[in-house]
C-alpha cells in the first residue's frame, strides 16, 4: 500500500508540474491552452531523438531544452494569444481554445509522422535504494526532487523577480499594470514561455517514468486542465497540490481496480468536482 502511495507521489509530481504551467498561462492571459500536453510530448520526442546522438542525462537535457521551449512559447503566443487581443474576454477565451486545439491536432499528426505510433519511453537505468524497508526507484526520486525544485523556483521567480511581479500584476489588473509601465504583450509572452518550459520538463519527466503515446498530448492537457480547475485557476500552490492528489488517485485506482478503469474513475471524479465546484457555476 505504501509502495502505491510512493508511486502516486511520483506521478503526482509530474502532473503538478504540467498543471502549474497551465495555471500560469490561464492566470496571466486567461487562456485555456489545449496544446499544453502536446508540448510535453514534443519535449519527450526531442529528448528521445537527442539520446541517439548524445547520451544526455534527463537533468542535463532539461537545462539544454529550456531556451528552446522558451522560444516555442514565444511562437505559440503569436498564434494563440496575440491575434485575439482585440476580442472581449469570453470571445478571446473561445478563440484561443479553438486555436490551441488546432495546434494540438497539427502537432499530433507531426508526432505520428516523425516518431511513428510507438510510445515514447526515455527510461534510463538507475539504482534502486532501500529506505525503511521500502524500495525507492532512484530515477523517480531524483525526478520528484527536480519537479519539486522546478515548482519552487517558479514560485520564487513569480514572487521575487521584476518579471514575476509584472506577470502577477498583469494577472490582477491588465489596465492598471499597463498604467504602471508594464508591457502586457511582452509580459504575457514571457509567461507563456515559462509555461511552455514547465510543459517541456513535465514531458521529459513523464517519458522517463512511463511510455508516452504520440497522441497522448490532449489527454495530458485535459488532466492538467482539470487539476488547474480543481486546484484553483491562476495560482501555483493549488494545482501543485491537486496534481499530487490526482497522482495518488490514479495509483490507487490502478491498484484497487484494473488499469483500464483508471481513466474512467479519474475523469468521473474530476467532472464531479467541476460540477460541484462553485466557481464554475453561475452564482
Amino acid at each position, binding site marked *: 500500500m505504501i509502495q502505491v502511495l510512493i508511486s502516486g507521489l511520483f506521478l503526482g509530481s509530474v502532473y503538478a508540474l504540467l498543471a502549474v504551467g497551465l495555471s500560469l498561462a490561464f492566470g496571466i492571459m486567461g487562456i485555456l491552452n489545449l496544446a499544453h500536453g502536446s508540448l510535453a510530448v514534443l519535449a519527450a520526442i526531442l529528448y528521445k531523438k537527442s539520446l541517439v546522438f548524445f547520451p544526455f542525462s534527463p537533468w542535463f537535457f532539461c537545462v539544454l531544452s529550456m531556451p528552446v521551449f522558451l522560444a516555442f512559447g514565444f511562437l505559440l503566443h503569436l498564434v494563440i494569444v496575440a491575434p485575439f487581443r482585440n476580442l472581449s474576454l469570453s470571445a478571446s477565451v473561445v478563440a484561443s481554445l479553438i486555436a490551441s486545439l488546432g495546434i*494540438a*491536432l497539427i502537432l499530433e499528426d507531426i508526432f505520428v509522422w516523425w516518431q511513428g505510433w510507438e510510445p515514447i519511453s526515455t527510461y534510463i537505468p538507475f539504482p534502486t535504494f532501500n529506505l525503511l524497508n521500502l524500495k525507492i526507484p532512484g530515477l523517480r526520486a531524483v525526478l520528484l526532487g527536480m519537479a519539486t525544485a522546478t515548482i519552487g523556483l517558479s514560485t520564487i521567480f513569480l514572487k521575487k523577480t521584476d518579471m514575476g511581479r509584472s506577470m502577477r500584476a498583469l494577472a490582477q489588473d491588465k489596465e492598471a499594470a499597463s498604467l504602471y509601465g508594464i508591457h502586457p504583450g511582452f509580459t504575457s509572452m514571457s509567461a507563456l514561455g515559462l509555461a511552455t518550459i514547465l510543459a517541456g520538463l513535465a514531458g521529459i519527466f513523464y517519458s522517463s517514468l512511463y511510455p508516452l503515446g504520440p497522441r497522448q498530448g490532449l489527454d495530458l492537457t485535459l488532466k492538467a486542465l482539470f487539476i488547474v480547475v480543481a486546484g484553483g485557476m491562476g495560482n501555483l500552490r493549488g494545482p501543485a497540490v491537486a496534481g499530487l492528489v490526482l497522482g495518488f488517485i490514479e495509483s490507487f485506482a490502478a491498484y484497487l481496480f484494473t488499469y483500464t478503469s483508471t481513466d*474512467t474513475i479519474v475523469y*468521473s471524479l474530476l467532472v464531479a468536482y*467541476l460540477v460541484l465546484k462553485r*466557481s464554475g457555476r453561475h452564482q
Partner: protein
Amino acid sequence: MKRWQILFSIVILSVLTIASAVFNEGYVGIFVFSLIINGTMAVSYDIPGRSLGLISLGHAVFFGVGAYCFGLGISMGFSFFPSLFLTLLLSFIIAMLVTLLLAGLNHGYYSLATLGVLIIFQKIVETLEFVTGGSAGLYIPDVLSKHHYSLLAALLLLATAACHVFFSRSRWGLYSKETKASEDAAEVVGIPTRKVKILCLMTAAIPACMAGAIHLARTSYVSPPSGFSLTLSITALLSSRIVPVSGLLGPLLGVLLITTAEEVIWTKFEGFNHALFGLILLGAAFYQGLFSDKELARR
C-alpha cells in the same frame, strides 16, 4: 432571419432531401449521408451554441449514446423501429442526466466539462466490454435498405431544422438570448435561466442521439472512438461557427463547407487529416480574431 436567408435555407434542405432520395448507394450516397448527419449535428449544436453562447467540445456524447443505445436494442433482438423508440427513451434519460450535470456551468468550465464527459463515456463504453464490445466496437446486422436510412436521416435533419427555427422564435429562444447577454439580469426579470439552459441543451441533445442511431443503422458498426469522437464534436462546432450568418443558414452553409473540406482532407491527405483539420480550426480562430466582437455581431 432575413427573407433571403430563409429561402436559401429551404433550398439547401430541399436539395439535401432530394439528394438523399436519389443518391443512396456508392461514394456519392455516403457523402450525401455524411452531409445530412453532420448537418443534423451542426444544426442541433447551433441551438445552445448560438442562443446561449456555450461552446461544447463534447456534442458527440449524444451521438455516441444514441448509436450504442440503438446497437444494444438491435443486439437484444428488437426490430428497427422498436430499437429506435428504445434509443429515444434511453437517450432522453441519459441526455437529461448529462444536461442536468452541465447546465450550471459557464463558458470555459462548460467546454472543459463537456470534453471530460466525452472521454468518460468513451472509457465507460470501452470498459463495459460484455455489453458494448469494448474497444473492438459493436456490429449490428443491416435491417432496412440504404434508401430508407438516407430518407430517415433527411427527415431527422428537417425535424432538427424545424426545432431550431421554432426554438429561436419561441419565448424560450428569447429567454436564452437574454440568458446569454447577462444571466444575472435575466434572473432579475424573472427568466428561469437554469430551466432555459436545460430545455435548450435537451433540444440539441435528442436530434444528436437519433443521428447516432441512424448512422449506426447504415454503417452497421460503431466503436468508442468513432461514436464518442472529438473530431465529430469539432466538426459540429466549426460548422455552426464558421459562417457568420445568423439563424439556420449559418450551420447549413457551415456543414457544406466543413464536410466537403473534411472529405477532401480524408481522401487526399491520408495521415495528415488531423493536421489539416487543425489548420481549419486555426483559420476559423484567426478569422474570429481579425474582427472585433462588434464587427462580428454586425455581420
